[in-house]
């Protein structure tokens, strides 16, 4: 435990300057340079790299939304993927041919931008319905209700196969259409303005995603500084004191919950459009936990931290871990442990074994961040104070005197 404590001490010495502007600047520049780099480094074949980051963008959106609930208002939502599923299925119903094979027998094709907001409002409505009766309860009961809800929603989508095609999911969703788009060398066309541009290329998705993210970041940052945002933080720190100061705690918590759900629904619609496929398997508990890990690791309550955390976790879970089995096989062969590669009795082969590490790595990240750096990689400076005070709750009078005189 002593080693733990000393490691934590090293971690806790933070830079004195606020790192947020620097992180924003780096992220902005990186967002612009990334496609150029991706195309240059692969000789014009960078579509996959760009598409991956557009997918990661969906998770960043989700993480920013969950951050409002968990990071700002301090409510633990363990069923966040349910709203994601609701958003995605809303898009699938309202923008595909799928409804033809349902009892409705009539396809609906609403434009992408409208469905994006329909998804947002539907998810927010579900957030309100779920939150209104449960937000009066103590904190961890909310976690359980959301967990239950998160388990119910994918199962309902799976079981209502008349409407949702069950486990097969709904495919061939409409591609989004942009009113105006600039064609140019980046898409291999001459420079021209195109109207009613159908978004199919990863590059277009990437641009839309980055713009949406920029808007969301500004929006959430404004929210955080607003009266509502300050009320969220007050509720997070001390609900009784907040109520005494005139904050309508139930309403303010409900608002955080609904806004978080709205983000999730929005991200879900985008995800459906990007993937052109929704399936109940994509919205399980692991998704909710992945998003939670993202914000916990990045720094709960701090937007730049959350973005960095999302990118990191996305990279680890969706790129690094899947790529690990072949890598491990290569290493093993290179250092003369080739015998580890093939399956042998109980030993499934090093590749398979690496794949099995996923759960362990995930859990270990959660536990160790909480133990060593509960404030996350780029912490919110306000929240950090709270954590520090929280840990020293049982200070003796001598400690307090030492602190005030020092």
């Amino acid at each position, binding site marked *: 435990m002593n080693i733990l404590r000393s490691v934590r001490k090293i971690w806790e010495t933070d830079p004195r300057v606020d790192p947020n502007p620097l992180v924003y600047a780096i992220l902005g520049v990186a967002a612009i340079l990334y496609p150029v780099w991706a195309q240059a480094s692969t000789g014009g074949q960078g579509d996959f790299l760009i598409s991956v980051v557009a997918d990661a963008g969906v998770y960043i959106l989700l993480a920013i939304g969950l951050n409002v609930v968990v990071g700002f208002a301090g409510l633990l939502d363990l069923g966040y993927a349910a709203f994601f599923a609701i958003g995605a299925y809303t898009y699938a119903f309202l923008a595909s041919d799928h409804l033809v094979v349902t009892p409705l027998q009539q396809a609906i094709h609403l434009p992408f931008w409208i469905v994006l907001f329909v998804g947002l409002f539907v998810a927010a409505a579900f957030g309100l319905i779920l939150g209104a009766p449960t937000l009066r309860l103590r904190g*961890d*009961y909310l*976690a359980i209700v959301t967990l*239950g809800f998160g*388990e119910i929603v994918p*199962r309902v989508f799976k079981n209502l196969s008349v409407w949702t095609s069950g486990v097969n999911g709904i495919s061939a969703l409409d591609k989004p259409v942009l009113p105006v788009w600039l064609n140019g060398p980046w898409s291999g066309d001459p420079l021209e303005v195109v109207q009613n541009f159908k978004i199919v290329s990863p590059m277009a998705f990437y641009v839309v995603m980055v713009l949406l993210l920029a808007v969301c970041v500004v929006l959430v940052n404004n929210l955080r500084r607003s009266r509502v945002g300050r009320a969220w933080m007050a509720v997070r720190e001390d609900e009784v004191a907040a109520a005494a100061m005139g904050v309508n705690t139930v309403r303010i918590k409900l608002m955080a919950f609904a806004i978080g759900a709205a983000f999730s629904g929005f991200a879900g619609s985008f995800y459906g459009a990007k993937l052109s496929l929704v399936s109940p398997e994509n919205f399980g508990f692991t998704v909710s936990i992945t998003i939670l890990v993202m914000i916990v690791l990045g720094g709960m309550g701090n937007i730049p931290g959350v973005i960095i955390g999302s990118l990191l976790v996305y990279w680890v879970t969706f790129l690094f871990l899947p790529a690990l089995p072949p890598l491990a096989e290569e290493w093993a062969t290179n250092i003369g442990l080739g015998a580890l590669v093939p399956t042998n009795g109980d030993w499934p082969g090093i590749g398979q074994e690496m794949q099995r590490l996923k759960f362990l790595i995930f*859990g270990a990240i959660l536990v160790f961040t909480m133990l060593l750096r509960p404030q996350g990689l780029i912490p919110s400076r306000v929240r950090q104070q709270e954590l520090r005070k929280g840990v020293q709750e049982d200070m003796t009078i001598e400690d307090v005197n030492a602190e005030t005189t020092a």
Partner: protein
Amino acid sequence: MVSSVANARARLVAGSRGRLLNGTLFALIAIALVILATKVATNGPAYFIQIVVYGLANGSIFALIALGYTMVYGIVELINFAHGDVFTLGGFISLWLLPIFGVTEGGTVTGAGLILPLLAILVISMILCAVVNVTIERVAYRPLRHAPRLTPLITAVGMSFVLEGIMFLWRGPFNLHYPNVLPATSIELGGANGPAIGFKDVAVIVIAVVLMVALTLFVERTKLGKAMRATAQDRDAAELMGIDINRTIAATFFIGALLAGAGGMIFGLYYNTITFDQGFTAGLVAFTAAVFGGIGNIQGAALGGLVIGMIQSLSDGYFDTAWTQVLIFAILVLVLVFRPTGILGMRVPEK
């Protein structure tokens, strides 16, 4: 004066709201019972008895897991998400021990000769699970005892993933066959077409009941049990009375995991199949049971486990298996919304 009027009005609103909520709850239960009664009437009594027996066996296992949840919540107000995986671990450890003790399917050891090795395996699995759970408490929860409440909850989820990861690494992602060593004899009621009560069903229920009675006696009669109750009621006061809080909490985790480990082995013997991630859903269902009975309440958890097991069995038998889990989680949400104190009332008061 103004405030007292406002208070009275608030009470009035809250009262009518409570009555409305309770009314809705009763209406829902009544509808469910009526639908069930019609189904029962069409399928005959033999089938019903069979379902009830399954439900009791099922519920005993849930009750064993639920007890651990409720005890830990009662004493440290933490939902120990890793608890469900400790239950799975019990199954995995006993599966590993079975051949070591010479117990195999169709093996030489049968009949009464089985009792001793099975009991030994049960005890060893229980103790190993308990050691694991106490280690988890020591590593992941104790350092965070004064941290904000979300923090240990997140490490609990992390620990659950770590345990699942270890079992995944150990035996792989597949359904594992658990040797069917218990005798297949059964008592047939009312001839060949009547319901049959298997030896397995009886064994599961008996073991569970024995363990639960032992737990109740332990908590109510022993000094350590008294210390646990005192710590759950008021930790600071208990500490002032000279109770070693850390030891008492560790003991709670130990005992909770003993029961979960036993549950894991019984589950394996009963269903003859285990998977590395079964603890997640089983844990959630058991937690539902604990909440249902009133979290922090030991008798409540046992009763809740039986009720939830029965509901699961009835839903599987009379409705659709695919919807059973939806139904159980819906019950979880509804209980928390309408009656967060559970049917027997929780011992932990609202802050």
